[in-house]
């Protein structure tokens, strides 16, 4: 009815609040004001309350002497500052997470593939592994490794000995290499041989593309690296010596030590998370259509090559995003090392919290460090994901 007389139709007067663009800007402004106001209110409340109750605040404590000892990978002593202690905790968290991620990835890949094996025994073992481990809380897995496996090892005086290596309930002790004066030449030789090996691989790939002839590039490269590095090492006159661990009354001093806390946390996190990664790998492989496998077989590829060249590259696209979550989980679960005395970020923070009483600051530092680590891992995985993503033409 209103449009019967099209000539006399005039658009209704437009209010700014009916304009979607203006409205969304207004909502954004209100939201920003609310969030900023809330944060300001909370900050003001916190500082006022802290001051009134006589509780110390601020970050000045980070520069003060800690006065307590913890066994960390950085050489911390009771003379170190609180700040350095927290940094050492962060380094411990990074080291244990790094190695746990490597173990979890390799083990997870193997178990995930084994879950799809045609061999009944292999398949069943893999299934039992996954179902057993992913249904146990990670803390129990850690305590199991610490109290049932590592602590069950013999005491120091009856340690398993293998040359200068020894294994006991105090950890793994091994000789520490001491680099001589001329060792840099060996290192340079190693770098140069690596470049040559990489060149060989490129040449072999180009030749295979052009002529179809294959060349054992990996084995040749490995031989080049080993021969060149070893030659440089021998020519410069064996500049490498070892510091042998020696028994003292209670412990073993000198050499390299892997403390039981580190070993059990690393193994526990690796083995536990591998059960999740195995399922991710399995789902990734199953997401690749069976036709791909059949086609690969049809052109004559053998089983291992079908997996390596056809199935896994496509499965990776499904695997990588959830894999990133598992890596983040490992990093965060490493804080459970608290229960067994691994000096990670949280354990160190707890000990900083006690003498300083600055819980808000320490919690803020925890959150900042974990957030930083998680963002770095996410970023790295996103970059990798983008590289292997399907390029559509």
């Amino acid at each position, binding site marked *: 009815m209103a449009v019967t007389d099209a000539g006399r139709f005039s658009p209704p007067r437009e209010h700014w609040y009916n304009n979607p663009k203006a409205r969304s800007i207004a909502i954004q402004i209100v939201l920003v004001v609310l969030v900023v106001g809330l944060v300001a209110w909370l900050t*003001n*409340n916190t500082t006022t309350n802290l001051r009134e*109750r006589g509780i110390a605040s601020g970050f000045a404590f980070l520069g003060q002497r800690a006065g307590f000892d913890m066994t960390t990978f950085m050489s911390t002593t009771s003379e170190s500052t609180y700040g350095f202690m927290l940094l050492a905790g962060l380094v411990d968290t990074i080291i244990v997470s790094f190695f746990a991620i490597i173990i979890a990835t390799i083990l997870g890949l193997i178990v995930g593939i084994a879950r799809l094996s045609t061999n009944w025994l292999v398949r069943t073992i893999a299934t039992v592994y996954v179902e057993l481990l992913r249904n146990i809380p990670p803390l129990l897995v850690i305590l199991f490794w610490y*109290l049932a496996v590592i*602590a069950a090892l013999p005491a120091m005086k009856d340690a398993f000995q293998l040359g200068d290596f020894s294994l006991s309930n105090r950890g793994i002790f091994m000789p520490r290499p001491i680099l001589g004066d001329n060792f840099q030449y060996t290192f340079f030789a190693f770098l140069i041989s690596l470049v040559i090996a990489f060149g060989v691989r490129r040449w072999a790939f180009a030749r295979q593309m052009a002529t179809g002839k294959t060349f054992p590039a990996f084995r040749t490269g490995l031989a080049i690296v080993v021969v060149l590095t070893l030659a440089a090492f021998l020519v410069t006159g064996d500049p490498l010596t070892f510091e042998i661990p020696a028994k*003292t009354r209670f*412990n073993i001093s000198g050499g390299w030590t892997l403390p039981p806390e580190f070993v059990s946390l690393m193994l526990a996190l690796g083995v536990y998370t591998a059960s999740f990664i195995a399922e991710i790998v399995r789902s990734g492989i199953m997401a690749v259509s069976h036709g791909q496998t059949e086609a690969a077989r049809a052109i004559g590829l053998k089983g291992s090559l079908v997996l390596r060249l056809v199935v896994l590259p496509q499965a990776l696209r499904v695997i990588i995003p959830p894999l990133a979550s598992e890596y983040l989980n490992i990093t965060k679960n490493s804080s459970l090392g608290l229960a067994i005395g691994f000096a990670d970020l949280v354990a160190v923070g707890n000990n900083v919290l006690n003498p*300083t*009483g600055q*819980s808000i600051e320490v919690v803020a530092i925890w959150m900042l460090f974990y957030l930083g680590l998680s963002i770095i891992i996410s970023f790295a995985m996103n970059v990798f994901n983008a590289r292997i993503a399907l390029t559509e033409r």
Partner: protein
Amino acid sequence: MKNKLLPFLAGAALAVAAASSASAGTLDTIKSKGFVQCGVNTGLPGFGNPDSSGAYSGFDVDYCKAVAVAVFNDPTKVKYTPLDGTERFPALQSGEVDLLVRNTTWTMSRDTTLGFTFAGVHYYDGEGFMVRKSANIAHVKDLDGATICVQGGTDTVTGLADYFKKNNLKYTPLVIDKLADVNAAYDAGRCDALTTDRSGLAANRLQMKAPDDHVILPEMISQEPLGPVVRNNDVQWFQIVKWVSNALLDAEYLGVTQANVDDMLKSPDSAVQRLLGVGDNDFGKSIGLDPKWAYNIIKALGNYGEIYDRNLGPKTPMGLARGLNAQWNQGGIQYGIPIL
């Protein structure tokens, strides 16, 4: 992971609590909710330990009860919050507990930078060491190069570092958060020695698989005065806890016990009359309590010596002699401030 949440809670409570300083008196709050919320150990025999039914008992726990009797004349009007070493301070700061009696050492920084005040010393303690008998260690100085288990978030960690540095000894610390985990690691042979307050060692020794295989070294390497702690923003509540503590000591000194407290009401001794609120003595009024507050405490729980003997004394599994904690006229250093 309760211990990870507590610092957050403390922060959140401080952030959300209105920034005005008008806080209701702790005593009024307690009276209106009907119980005292007391922070105690998660499980330290003799001091604060739950039994199989979850009921707490111990030396620290009796102090919680004494405060409840002073306020309500009823030792059951206490609710307990079990706290480990790192949880305890945020719990008190945030107001989750009214009172912390958890073998907590009185130190200057805790008294001045945490927003707390200590209401006296109810147990004079010191850091000691436990080792295996088979290790043939007679003194702390023999521990050069040893691995030592210690609970994190306590000042024992600092005492250990100080002592070994001063005496130029080397050691490898193994710092674990929960006492039970520290005990398990030591018992499993991970450490050569276990260190904590000597009173705690007596309790920990009982929790080993074979208690007789372990000995406590004779040295005491630090001063650890333990006492009840409150927030420093409520003087009246602080006075109540402080004078409950003193009344227990005064009662022992004056010879007032759970058994004879009714007879003592007729005592001609003016000090006893003041303590028990006989006649027109009304010291309870000055701290907002009943005139019979101290009488009620002694009637329900006994005096300091009786509480000690019941929980820690030579006749208990703890077997701790009074030592430093005897009255000053009995060779110790416990000394009640007079009610006058």
